[in-house]
């Protein structure tokens, strides 16, 4: 038995931390990549803001669009609700609400992470790459602690649900940014710069090594897209996340599905089926951006259906 409010908090704690972790990886990779880029090449920074759909508020506040503005906006800006610091603060607010349900270890981890992110803390004196990898490690530590200390009950399942939905969303956004925004025309596909960016893309999604292991050939756009969207065993691929979401929702709704499935049940099944049985060539022929766009719309809808079914009563 789980309070609706508690389920919602667990779901959001995990979404926020997953978001913070993804942003930190984004920024870290982009910063490293900018050092490799020939002068005058595509600015690697702004797409990061596009990826979280915050371009409008950013442009309004920082018309000069300097790289440092982007980085601060994404990491330390308390006015940006999607900055790392805001995500961690909201995760901790949610955690405070339900700390009796989390294990002490989980609470302490999130609490330490929060205090480390405050003004004047040692982390801000470190080189930026160190800051970012520390933040990421702390977020991942939270998942590890959750998995190692929390009973595998409803509380855990709602945690997983939040984590996976956010992850599917972010992996697809990263791919979208590359495909849709970094490259003005499809003719540039296959250039030298292109390969660097594909590598950066894989790194941003935390997928470079596993991609190399899975694909021994050179880095081709289609194989990267396939890997990030459809790989059945890579834990950050969209398909893997959707499988997990589907299984978790089934476990939460332990009773057998009714003859006339609910809207949530339909959504879950359709999404899983679609992404399990589609081929990458078909996605690309029909338009990768359109496919990702529709995935994100579906994920938002899934979020709303979960909200409606479990969090409001």
């Amino acid at each position, binding site marked *: 038995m789980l309070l609706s409010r508690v389920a919602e908090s667990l779901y959001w704690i995990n979404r926020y931390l997953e978001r913070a972790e993804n942003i930190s990886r984004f920024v870290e990779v982009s910063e490293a990549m900018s050092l490799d880029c020939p002068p005058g090449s595509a600015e690697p920074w702004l797409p990061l803001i596009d990826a979280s759909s915050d371009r409008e508020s950013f442009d309004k506040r920082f018309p000069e669009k300097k790289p440092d503005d982007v980085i601060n906006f994404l990491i330390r800006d308390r006015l940006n609700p999607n900055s790392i610091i805001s995500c961690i603060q909201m995760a901790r607010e949610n955690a405070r609400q339900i700390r*009796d349900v989390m294990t002490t270890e989980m609470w302490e981890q999130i609490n330490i992470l929060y205090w480390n992110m405050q003004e004047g803390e040692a982390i801000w004196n470190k080189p930026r790459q160190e800051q970012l990898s520390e933040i990421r490690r702390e977020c991942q530590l939270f998942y590890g602690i959750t998995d190692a200390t929390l009973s595998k009950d409803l509380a855990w399942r709602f945690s997983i649900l939040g984590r996976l939905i956010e992850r599917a969303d972010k992996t697809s956004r990263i791919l979208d940014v590359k495909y849709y925004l970094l490259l003005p025309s499809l003719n540039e596909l296959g250039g030298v710069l292109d390969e660097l960016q594909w590598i950066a893309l894989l790194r941003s999604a935390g997928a470079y090594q596993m991609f190399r292991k899975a694909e021994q050939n050179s880095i081709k756009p289609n194989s990267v897209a396939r890997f990030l969207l459809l790989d059945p065993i890579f834990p950050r691929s969209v398909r893997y996340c959707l499988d997990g979401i589907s299984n978790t929702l089934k476990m939460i709704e332990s009773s057998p599905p009714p003859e006339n499935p609910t809207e949530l049940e339909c959504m879950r099944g359709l999404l899983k089926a679609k992404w399990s049985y589609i081929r990458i060539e078909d996605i690309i022929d029909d338009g990768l951006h359109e496919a990702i766009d529709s995935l994100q719309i579906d994920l938002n809808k899934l979020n709303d259906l979960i909200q409606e079914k479990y969090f409001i009563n």
Partner: protein
Amino acid sequence: MKYMFSNYRPKNSFDEYFKDNVNSAREILIPLLSSLDNMGLEELNRNHSAAKKLLLRHGATFRLNDTGLKGTERILPFDPLPRIISKDDWVTLEKGLKQRLEAIDLFLDDIYNSQNIINDGIIPRELIESSDGWRPQMIGFKPPLNKWCQISGLDLIRDRKGDWHVLEDNLRCPSGVAYFLENRLVMKNIFPNLFSGRIVKPIDEYPSYLLKTLQELAVWTDTPKIVLLTPGIFNSAYFEHSYLAQEMGIQLVQGHDLVCNDDYVYLKTTSGLKRVDVIYRRIDDDFLDPLNFRKDSCLGVSGLLDVFKAGHVALANAPGTGIADDKMIYSFVPRMIKYYLNEEIIIKNVETYICHYQKDREYVLENLPKLVVKSVAEAGGYGMLIGPHSTSSEIEEFANKIRKNPRNFIAQPTLELSTVPSLCNGELYPCHVDLRPYILRGRDTWVSPGGLTRVALKKGSLVVNSSQGGGCKDTWVVGK
């Protein structure tokens, strides 16, 4: 001892470590003082910082306002020098606390039912019915086990001679027990050496007794569903609420997680509504049920009082207990003990003047510079006048308040609370302390060994309340 305490000068009040100077430590303190001396002031200060970090990591914080920026959330200042109480002293105190609570519970049951104590002329009716804590809604009601105060925390002090007195009865939602437990945890973690060679009475059973006490209230079932009702994360005691819920493994809920339906209370869960049997509520009577108490409250649950009165849910503590911790009713406790138990009071009250009575009022108005005057319904050290520390215009202002609304005030002689050495800016300094032991009453009564020692950490201050810059320290009940 010479080294660490060589600059320490006890004040005029009773010092709990030393008889009159640093060369005559109280016998029971000698082992601790030698451990402290082995440690040295430098290491004590270093470990003190470690202790503060640990409290922050645990989240033992209270929030000052809601901006979410650093500095608005603080730990309660923690002092590492424990306060020590001998087992012999403790046995007497424990007896005295049980006696007091027994009488108070009988009083509450009487006052909301047959009112013998009024009819027999012991306490005037108008004093009862004019109290802020009086809840006429409870008239004719019998709570489960006939007990009203499951959880209380009484404030004790020692006077200039070292004699113990009860300063206040806190019978509504007394707070601080999480710090009481957390302080011991910190001491064991950071200062294990100080414990060596001594047996300090453990306090870890508190959550188990609390859970048992709450379970016993659900006289209608063997498998009660218990929850802790909090006003939410903006309440300054929120840390305590979540701490206790976690320690007991019960759910922490807010008003909007609960709903009253068909004479029962339910929890809103992901699998629908589930019945609740016992609510440990940390919300004041006024805010508990907008239908029956304050209409503007959004913290409580509509209709909760009706479910309670129907006997379908237990509330700890029962609404209405505030009548007994009215600071004026306090002055009648010795008479209650005589009346209900036919016993003499074991832990004395502080002498109290009731401004409602003309004779007392005249004395108080003439002697304000010597007295402490308190508003009967306020807590947290607010609404009081400390005569010796006040200007003549402050005194005149208070005199007017008393004349205007005498029922609202009591006065007591100025007390020099006892002192215990404490760290003030890295040095040892005698700081005033009080003590809040916690008493749990289910089928049996259990008293926490020791309690929360609050300490006035500002040099020279007499105010121990956390809302006014006070801190706390671990309290040890030890055998010889």
